[in-house]
């Protein structure tokens, strides 16, 4: 930690929050708000004279409220920066100085009530999101009595109680009577692995953290009676099983089952009823103290940051990586990386590993001092643009700006455009050219494919990352399927313009398949949502025009689903066989008329 404070290349901004991010990979403009500390960070020597005179006493957050501090304080003894800080909301008075005792006490004169919040703007090439987690709030799960019984503690409170630097100097005492407990119970999975309250996921670290705590306790108090109530003990990491065994050997009792009810006895100890699910017996224990092994939940500011940076979250609320196996620390947005629990609950070793990986990924991006932008991006033909704003609305990367009010044409920020082609598919004025996948290029492919024997062919659109790769995988696995499909590759299913479909039908296609990555797996954040909406719209239109909607299919096929690709092809072939020549001829006429009417409008 102190290395960070001293490092010449690190600018440390504490009490600070990112409030705005503009720009794109290579050059993000970041606005940071730094709250006033009221103590000069550089001058303060942490002598602590100010604390002695401050009359305001408050619970100390660092010790989970188990001790007190003053309105001017040091966050904790090893803090970096070491400078003290004033909590203005608690301080008696700086306006005009009502109290100001600390100002007098400070010899170096580093306390300054006129400090104000600062706004700092920094330009950076990459961003690492390492915002960590919040512990689960056990108040919600009150059957464990956290709000009612003094001797029920959270794992973090317990940590401070056994910490040599904590309020008791590492002496374990019960909060109620400051007596040393003879027995202690740990309840696992508090706020984790529950569909009822808290979260469904496993928080990954609480099992090992409890095992560690039992070892610490046994080392200090060999005769203490410890019971651990659990669902499963997950000791999967290197060396973990060993610690678990050591804990059992030292006499810690592990009991499979979570307590059903907890009551407080007159002396403040706790009576626990628990069904031991390995024996099926209902057991009762009375223990001096209980510790709730808190799970992790996404940090409070996660959603705000997600919106600011245009990132995605998992259904659990943690940040979503670009690919779970191949790009585990990259965000889908180029230039942004994840480290630590912001991405998912993990222990220290995994966090450090991921942090180093994120640094390496950022270095890989930045080391040459320049970035090359992919030329497969979209461009606006200004004179065709109607400034309707649709493209800006659908772009998953916020790469397009349009001033709808002033009617200025859309502008694509090439560096931010990832090339999904959704904007080009959505623009109703033909004002967007998607390079390398232009309307003309794709239409030409459709026309040539259907110029002969159209009725035998299955016009298929497949996105580069999932469905096309899925078709490749069918090949690699030698899975055989009907030979009628002709695939047109686009980068994203979002590129598939409604007009491509009409064009296909106009050229006599009996059936059309649009395929892409599963919802949530899109390589362009969520561009496939627009595909889905568009197909829905076309389906409705088909119905109105009297064309069987089933002749247009939308399928999500992942890169690993070769078998599924083949299966979809067989299904498409069945539908194709159900389409008669008369039907396709009818469709050609209908669509031609519809397009003509549409063009006249």
């Amino acid at each position, binding site marked *: 930690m102190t290395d960070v404070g001293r490092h010449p290349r*690190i600018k440390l901004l504490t009490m600070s929050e990112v409030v705005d991010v503009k720009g794109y990979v290579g050059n993000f403009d970041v606005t940071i708000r730094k709250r006033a500390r009221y103590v000069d960070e550089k001058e303060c020597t942490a002598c602590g004279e100010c604390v002695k005179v401050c009359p305001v006493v408050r619970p100390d957050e660092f010790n989970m409220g188990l001790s007190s501090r003053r309105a001017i304080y040091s966050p904790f003894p090893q803090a*970096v*920066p070491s400078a003290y800080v004033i909590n203005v909301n608690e301080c008696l008075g700086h306006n005009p100085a009502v109290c100001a005792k600390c100002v007098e006490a400070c010899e170096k004169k580093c306390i300054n009530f006129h400090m104000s919040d600062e706004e700092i703007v920094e330009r950076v090439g990459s961003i690492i999101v*390492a915002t960590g987690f919040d512990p689960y709030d056990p108040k919600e799960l009150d059957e464990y009595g956290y709000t009612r019984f003094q001797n029920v503690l959270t794992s973090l409170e317990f940590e401070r109680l056994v910490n040599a630097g904590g309020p008791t100097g590492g002496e374990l005492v019960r909060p109620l009577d400051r007596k040393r407990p003879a027995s202690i119970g740990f309840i696992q999975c508090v706020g984790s692995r529950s569909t009822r309250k808290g979260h469904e996921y496993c928080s990954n670290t609480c099992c*090992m953290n409890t095992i560690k705590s039992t070892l610490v306790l046994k080392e200090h108090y060999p005769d203490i009676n410890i019971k651990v109530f659990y669902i499963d003990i997950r000791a999967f990491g290197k060396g973990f099983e060993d610690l678990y065994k050591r804990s059992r050997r030292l006499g810690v009792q592990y009991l499979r089952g979570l307590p059903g009810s907890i009551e407080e006895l007159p002396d403040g100890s706790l009576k626990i009823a628990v069904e031991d699910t390995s024996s099926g017996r209902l057991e009762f224990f009375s223990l001096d103290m209980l510790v709730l092994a808190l799970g992790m939940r996404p940090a409070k500011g996660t959603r705000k940051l997600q919106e600011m940076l245009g990132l995605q979250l998992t259904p659990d609320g943690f940040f979503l990586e670009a690919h779970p196996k191949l790009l585990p620390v990259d965000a889908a947005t180029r230039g942004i990386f994840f*480290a630590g629990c912001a991405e998912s609950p993990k222990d220290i070793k995994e966090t450090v590993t991921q942090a180093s990986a994120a640094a390496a990924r950022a270095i890989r991006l930045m080391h040459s001092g320049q970035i*090359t932008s992919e*030329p497969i991006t979209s461009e606006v033909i200004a004179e065709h643009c109607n400034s309707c704003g649709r493209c800006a609305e659908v772009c998953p990367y916020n790469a397009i700006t349009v001033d709808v009010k002033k009617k200025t044409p859309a502008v694509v920020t*090439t560096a931010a455009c990832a090339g999904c082609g959704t904007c080009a598919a959505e623009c109703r004025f033909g004002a967007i050219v998607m390079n390398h996948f232009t309307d003309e290029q794709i239409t030409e492919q459709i026309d*040539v494919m259907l110029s002969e024997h159209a009725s035998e062919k299955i016009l298929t659109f497949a996105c580069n990352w999932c469905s096309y790769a899925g078709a490749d995988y069918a090949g690699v696995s030698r899975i055989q399927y009907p030979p009628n499909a002709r695939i047109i590759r686009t980068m994203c299913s979002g590129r598939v313009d409604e007009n491509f479909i009409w064009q296909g039908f106009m050229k006599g296609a009996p059936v059309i398949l649009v395929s892409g990555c599963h919802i949530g797996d899109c390589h362009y954040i969520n561009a496939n949502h627009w595909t889905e909406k568009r197909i829905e719209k076309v389906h409705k239109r088909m119905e109105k025009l009297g064309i069987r909607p089933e002749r247009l299919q939308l399928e999500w096929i992942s890169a690993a689903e070769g078998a599924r690709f083949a299966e979809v092809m067989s299904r498409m072939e069945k539908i194709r066989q159900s389409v008669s020549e008369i039907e396709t001829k009818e469709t050609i006429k209908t669509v031609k008329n519809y397009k003509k009417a549409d063009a006249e409008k």
Partner: protein
Amino acid sequence: MKTTIIEHTDKNEARSVRIGVYVCHCGLNISQTVDCEKVAHIASGLDGVVVSKGIGYACSEPGQHEIRNDIEENMLDRIVIASCSPRLHEPTFRQLMLSSGLNPYLLEIANLREQCSWVHMKEPEAATAKAVDLVKMSVSRVRRLFPLYEETLPLTQKSLVIGGGVAGIQTALDLADSGFDVVLVEKKPSIGGTMAQLDKTFPTMDCSI
């Protein structure tokens, strides 16, 4: 950062083009099901195609050498390779284009292996017909491609690390020790995060700070 509004010129207008088509056998991988010579023959009659031939292994050094020679001798300006998936060798052949002085985006790949020979093994005729279609589509597509250029933009060699817990500290130090400037932003008055509150940590059971 550069923003583009382009004057839309005659990018899509047909010009006289000189296309080379190579139908790869991939040993027997493609040729035992698809009639490669027939495909090449049909392709030779397509608009703009100057050279069209079968080739043993397009991606091998001799294969690439042959294509490079043809480009030079016949002044080819666009290439269609009918071979394996573009997901495999598109980068290889783009590199070949570059080394022959052509724009790498004037290349199109028809996927005859993963999409024809390997998935229609028992239907050689249908597989060949499909291969012909795919090559035709590629030839007409390559005719309409236009050169694209990668842009290089300056980048700020500095990182923003949001959060000063273990993860943020480790990332910041790794970056800074590698010579990159770092701005480390922490909400609280001190860095350290939750880790600073822990006494001993598993698996080593030592102090966390």
